């Protein structure tokens, strides 16, 4: 296999450089041929390889070390430990405007940047029309770059890269800038680049982009490789981790507000199954929900029942009050709602059923109960629910 990048056990420690004394000491140890080691560890033992034609997406939270990893890969910084090998013609765009001098015209800057990327004058002349067409900034090309909008700068920067015809293109979140139509242009250029045998190493927060453009993914977490392999398992694990984390945050919030609940939920079941069970349904089944609420002043409380995804995204919810429904009084202080969702059109997946109790006026929310259930099935539809539909044209 044709290996473009191979890095083994790479670590990076940024030396402490805030005080002049620390800088002086770091200078001294470099002078003696030693590495200044004390400081923040940003990367810790990362290994990966990129094979020609197998694009790699690097994902992770802000501050996880993704950009540092790219800087190590492109050779902007030296790793503190480990081995870095890069083969072939590599173009890196860590920042599209890097290398632009604001006082010079767009054309001057194109020449400068093209030569910085290793293009000869002849190669530049051959590609100049394509570059200008891609940048699409018209007469402004002869104006100083300081008069450009930020979008124009980015377009010009990307346009120069398109002329480099690299084997491996390393990019850091550059698709997040520029307007919609420019982003589309970039994506379609990248897809063409990939189709022609190019390889991409991409840092992105968009799992959609990573899944669309890459075959492999690396999830960097606190400077370490948390998961590395085929793109789908890695991105799914990352998303699940994210969902779980934001769900935890929400739960903490719910607990904080529901403390000392007044109108308390006493019982919450699905088809008779209680809190510790995970009922399973098929699409088209019926779900019966029961929610029993304690009312301290014996007035009938309002009940809410809804379905959310595991990450808390609401799918559907009803409020008894709005539908003119009063609860059944079981005994003094105890009220019950029961409702049935029939022929459920939820797509397969894991859901939470949530019940809330509100005061009789339906103004304040008091308590929350939650149960997990799943819908099984085999379907290629996407989303949360099935919308009734029919295809109108067919050959």
């Amino acid at each position, binding site marked *: 296999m044709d290996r473009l990048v191979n890095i083994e056990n790479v670590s990076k420690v940024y030396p402490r450089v805030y005080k002049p004394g620390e800088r002086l000491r770091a*200078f001294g140890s*470099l002078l003696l041929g030693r590495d200044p080691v004390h400081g923040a560890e940003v990367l810790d033992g990362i290994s990966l390889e990129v094979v020609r034609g197998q694009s790699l997406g690097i994902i992770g939270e802000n501050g996880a070390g993704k950009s540092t990893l790219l*800087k190590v890969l492109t*050779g*902007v910084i030296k790793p503190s430990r480990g081995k870095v090998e890069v083969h072939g013609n590599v173009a890196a765009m860590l920042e599209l405007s890097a290398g632009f*001098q604001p*006082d*010079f015209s767009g054309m001057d800057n194109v020449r400068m940047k093209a030569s*910085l990327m290793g*293009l000869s004058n002849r190669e530049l002349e051959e590609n100049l029309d394509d570059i200008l067409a891609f940048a699409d900034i018209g007469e402004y090309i002869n104006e100083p770059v300081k008069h450009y909008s930020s979008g124009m700068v980015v377009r010009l920067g990307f346009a120069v890269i398109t002329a480099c015809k690299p084997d491996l293109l390393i990019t850091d979140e550059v698709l997040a800038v520029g307007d919609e139509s420019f982003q589309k242009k970039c994506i379609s250029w990248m897809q063409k680049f990939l189709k022609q045998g190019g390889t991409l190493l991409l840092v992105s927060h968009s799992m959609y982009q990573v899944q669309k453009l890459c075959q492999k993914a690396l999830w960097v977490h606190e400077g370490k490789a948390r998961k590395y392999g085929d793109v789908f398992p890695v991105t799914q694990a990352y998303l699940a981790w994210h969902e779980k984390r934001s769900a935890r945050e929400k739960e903490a919030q719910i607990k904080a507000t529901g403390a000392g609940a007044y109108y308390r939920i006493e019982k919450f079941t699905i088809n008779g199954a209680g809190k510790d069970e995970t009922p399973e349904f098929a699409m088209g089944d019926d779900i019966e929900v029961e929610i029993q609420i304690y009312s301290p002043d014996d007035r009938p409380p309002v009940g809410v029942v809804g379905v959310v995804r595991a990450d808390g995204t609401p799918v559907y919810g009803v409020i008894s009050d709005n539908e003119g429904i009063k609860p059944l009084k079981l005994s003094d202080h105890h009220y019950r709602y029961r409702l049935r969702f029939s022929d459920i059109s939820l797509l397969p997946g894991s859901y939470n059923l949530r019940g809330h109790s509100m005061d009789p006026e339906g103004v304040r929310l008091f308590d929350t109960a939650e149960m997990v259930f799943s819908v099984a099935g085999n379907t290629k539809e996407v989303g949360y629910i099935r919308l009734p539909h029919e295809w109108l044209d067919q050959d």
Partner: protein
Amino acid sequence: MTPGKNKKINGVFFRNLVIHQVKQDYLENITGFAWLILQPLILLAVYSFVFSTIFKARIPEAGDIGFVPYLAVAFWPWIAFSEAVIKASSSITSNAALIGKVAFATEQIPLATVTATFLMHVTGYLAVLLVLQLMGTDIHWLYLSLVVPVIILIWLFACAIALFASAIQVFIRDVAQILPPLMMFWFFTTPILYSASYLPASVQGIAEWNPMAWFVARLREFLLLGEINLDWKALIIVLLIGLFCWLSIRFFRRFSGHFEDFL
């Protein structure tokens, strides 16, 4: 291949860097590049007024050549040298944004600054020599072929100092403050405003090993006197400058991989 070894000097990029450096100073001037020649000539007029008319400066060795040509022949190469070193010393820190984002051979930045400064001042130097000739000084134009290698040696010397200074400046920012007075001291201890014979006998032995003093003496001999006094010392100077250049590039590369951590 590691990314570090990928960073070679890139001719096209280096040329563009130099062109940009030259353009930068004149970009928004109405007269543009005319200043390349006008500025040294105005300066020459100022010096001849100050030194010949006000100070009535005389140097015995200069004889009937006069003080102003004696000064001018040595002064412009020095200005090129000194300005190049001072400008280049902060060139790495002022290009931090580029160095942090693109991997390339960073030594090209101080080297381009030195080269651009030399190109500008050499243009002015030629204009000054031409005007001196027109004013009646006998310039030995044939010896220009010997002046070129001397200027190249001064350029190499400036490149080496610039590599040391710019690399150290990343770690110790005080270099930017220390360097100008140091260069000023060097200027006054080099026989540019005066002749080497003015130096006290006790320091003349040391002063002989000041490469700038050696260069200045040769330039005066070639251009004004039409003499060639090259001996074994010339060979040693060339070898020393070569060694110094080699050391400077090794020094610079030892640090350049770590610049990003300190910028």
